């Protein structure tokens, strides 16, 4: 791996960490429309669509590699992870479609009125609850990555900053 490649990987991992933190916080806010309000709920989730695409783009190599190897030699954890990611994708799509179809703020404000069916509200609630469970599993499967990356790109730089400040104070 060249120096440029390694720099690019570091930058990509850092971007991924911040995008994931952003998605996680936005998801927690969006999950409670009772508290945050319907307008925030709808606009935030529509904006999350963009961050989800960035999340998938940053994991593109893993997706392609695992798809190729899925029916061949692949570890159990990777296999579970791959299936879980597909479930998240399907559930996320259902969540988004049902949300758009029952939208009361975002779409009407754009002048779009869609026919509402009986099933969509219930499906929206169900897929949201299912997404919560899937997100818990997704987080658990990536826990070591989260800990390592958070420690490397957040905790250590902050600790270094404080250590640098303490050294400066000592030298004065």
């Amino acid at each position, binding site marked *: 791996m060249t120096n440029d490649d390694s720099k690019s990987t570091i930058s990509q991992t850092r971007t991924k960490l911040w995008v994931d933190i952003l998605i996680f916080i936005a998801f*927690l*806010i969006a*999950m*409670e*429309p*009772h*508290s*945050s*309000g*319907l*307008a925030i*709920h709808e606009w935030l989730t529509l904006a999350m669509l963009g961050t989800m*695409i960035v999340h*998938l*783009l940053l994991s*593109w190599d893993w997706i392609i590699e695992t798809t190729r190897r899925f029916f061949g030699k692949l570890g159990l954890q990777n296999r579970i992870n791959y299936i879980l990611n597909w479930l998240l*994708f*399907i559930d996320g*799509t*259902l969540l*988004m*479609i049902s949300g758009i179809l*029952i939208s*009361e*703020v975002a779409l009407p404000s754009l002048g779009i*009125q*869609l*026919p*509402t*069916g*009986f*099933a*969509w*509200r219930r*499906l929206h609630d169900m897929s949201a609850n299912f997404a*919560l*469970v899937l*997100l*818990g*599993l997704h*987080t*658990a*499967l990536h*826990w070591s990555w989260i800990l390592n990356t958070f420690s490397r790109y957040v905790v250590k730089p902050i600790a270094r900053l404080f250590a640098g400040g303490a050294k400066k104070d000592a030298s004065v």
Partner: protein
Amino acid sequence: MNTVFKILVILVGATLVGGLLYGVVTVTSSSQSPQFTEGSSSGQLPPDGNFDRPDHDGESSGIQFPMDSIKNLAIISVVGALYFNAAKFLGKRKSIPASV
């Protein structure tokens, strides 16, 4: 691979999955219940109890907001912990040699 092409692949994938789900839900729900358009002049109203959204702007806020998010965070943590324990349990079971 070009980034635009990757984005297109993701969007096409989402459209296919979404279209399939939309088709399944529309077919199954249309056979069970009528459809209506909100604000339509057809005079059809939503059935009682099903479409009354309780989640309107600013109805409740303040202390409830972090509490609800903490509740969701707790659910995510519990699911994660369950996964870890299950993985640990299965790992232990695998490592114990089978008695003859």
